[in-house]
């Protein structure tokens, strides 16, 4: 990931921030970098960030941060142009990286959904699926989380500015949770926690607040078979069912949430959908 092709003429890298179907929370996480925002504004030329600035300039952009998933025909087209204009494209958050919570439509009849929300559904243009950016264009780096962790974002931007390949840990929330000295909510309280199969990055917030992790940073890697491979969702699901007495529909809902359509979680939920039937 090299930001600038012409190293002889160094200049401030140009940043663009783009929004698709989302809640704006990951863009807000950029503005929540209160201590570093002004320095970031000096290190980067913020060329396109409509939520924060009416100074909107055309590409090319050295870095494009993309929030949100693709849910309309127009957006499926627009992401192609963002990709064309960007040297490095980074998805920020669960929507852009995994389709987001609105990907719950992927199991449903969207025409029926429209009828629930809108009296005249024919005015509403919407695809039947919510898909991550990577299903449409090449993505150079993914930031997981609903929302992203702002410190992870700062880390990745700092790495890019320093010409370093960004890397973030992919192990499970469990490891972070143990480091924080938390009592395990699943072992001690019998709460069905997704921490064993969820990627670290949030700081194990949920167990620290006395509740179950609900998977908003997506699947961890390598917990089962090694780096880059899916976590052992089957074993955890079995424990939810046999150990904690969750009925199949409850196990299904555990995996079908914020990151429900990303593969390891999707496939696990579908196993329990078959069991329920």
């Amino acid at each position, binding site marked *: 990931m090299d930001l600038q092709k012409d190293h002889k003429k160094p200049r401030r890298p140009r940043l663009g921030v783009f929004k698709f*179907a989302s*809640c*704006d929370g*990951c863009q*807000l996480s950029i503005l929540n970098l209160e201590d570093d925002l*002004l320095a970031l504004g000096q290190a980067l030329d913020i060329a396109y960030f409509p939520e924060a600035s*009416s*100074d909107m300039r055309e590409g090319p952009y050295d870095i494009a941060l993309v929030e949100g998933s693709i849910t309309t025909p127009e957006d499926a087209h627009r992401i192609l142009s963002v990709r064309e204009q960007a040297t490095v494209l980074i998805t920020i958050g669960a929507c852009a990286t995994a389709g*987001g919570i609105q990907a719950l439509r992927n199991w449903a009849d969207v025409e029926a959904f429209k009828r629930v929300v809108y009296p005249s559904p024919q005015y509403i243009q919407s695809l039947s699926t919510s898909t991550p950016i990577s299903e449409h264009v090449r993505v150079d780096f993914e930031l997981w989380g609903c929302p992203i962790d702002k410190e992870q974002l700062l880390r990745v931007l700092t790495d890019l500015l320093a010409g370093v390949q960004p890397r973030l840990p992919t192990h499970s929330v469990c490891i972070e949770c143990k480091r924080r000295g938390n009592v395990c909510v699943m072992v001690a309280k019998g709460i069905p926690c997704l921490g064993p199969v969820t990627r670290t990055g949030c700081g194990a917030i949920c167990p620290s607040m006395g*509740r179950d992790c609900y998977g908003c940073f997506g699947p961890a890697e390598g917990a089962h078979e090694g780096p880059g491979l899916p976590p052992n969702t089957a074993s955890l699901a079995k424990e939810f069912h046999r150990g904690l007495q969750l009925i199949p529909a409850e196990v299904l809902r555990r995996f079908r949430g914020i990151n429900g359509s990303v593969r390891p979680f999707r496939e696990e939920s579908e196993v329990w959908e078959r069991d329920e039937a």
Partner: protein
Amino acid sequence: MSESKGTNTRTIAVDMIARVEGEGALRVTVKDGTVQDVELRIFEPPRFFEAFLQGRHYSEVPDIVARICGICPVAYQMSAVHALEQIFGLQVDGALRDLRRLIYCGEWIESHTLHVYMLHAPDFLGYASAIAMAKDHPEMVTRGLRLKKAGNALMTLLGGRSVHPVSVKVGGFSRVPLRRELEGLKEELLWARDAAVETVRWVAGFDFPDFAQDYTFVALRPSDEYPFNEGPIASSGGVNISAVEFEQHFREEQVSYSTALQCSFNGAGYLAGPLARLNLNADRLSPMAKQTLADTGLALPLRNPFHAIVARSVEILYAIEETLRIIDSYEPPPSPSVPVTVRAGTGMACTEAPRGILYHRYRVDGDGLIREAKIVPPTSQNQRRIEEDLRAYMPRVLDLPNKQAALGCEKVIRCYDPCISCATHFLKLDIQRDG
């Protein structure tokens, strides 16, 4: 910005209005120098929350509805838990009730400060962004960022994080803070209180266009406090109803040009949000907020939408004073939540999101599963009123060159701090001039 001229038709288009949360468009039709149609078109992609809430367990609702809006997730969580608690016959009192006010204060401080300093003040001072403004006014922008951080710190302590907090649940919280954790915030909050007073003085000194409108203000009005989570819905026209009666008075309609439904109150547009709240509840403000507002010399009710930045700043100050009051009297509750007994039924609740009243209704079955959900966000309520303001404002800008006319309209829209992510995103101005 594009411009096209036909023989009789002139079209001005701005591809996106900046510094709002979301995506929408504005189309204005002008014929023979007279404004014909004003359409605020929201084409934020629909996300169908009300549909996919069906079949989910009530305990999942706070985590799901938070995702409607990254700027005001607490508002969604609060309206949801109150509506669900109504079904289960649950009363959440004492310290737990105070903590709910507290996390809501954190959200108001964060959301209002974001708008006052980063989205709205640049309009009055002539900058494209707060970052650009920082070059000439570093002390103002630094103050705003620190104030915003104080709100985020409060939300993070109570909710684990400020965007999509994790601790709010039906019955209370998954964890409540220790006394000393809250006291650890006090020093910064005392700074923030002074900074909020300075903020009110600063924004009250901005140059406001003379643009008083005849509004129907709608806000919660509890009997003895400034509103957050409870209270009857009151209007400046004297209406006083409970949230249970909301749908008898407020109607949502779909318009062909928008993915957000438009809401009307007894058949007309109305104003919700900081101006409405302040005008209807000024007598419930905390002492410093009351005094600082009085010192601005502005007479209530505030009827100029551009004064919303003052109302927002007064509410930041109120929220900080309320936070300090709650922290000083805080004794941790015996349990972080009260037990829930599931029963089937329907519940409704309205709470005061930073941008105005937020209505939720749920129908739950005997297993605790959601059978029906209805959510009316503040921005879809204000949408019609924004259009009416624009209609009134257009004559002032019609003679201006396209770019300035468009900018004038954007400024009117920004007064509302519209959260189009909530209502649905992307503002595009399109003025058609016919003759």
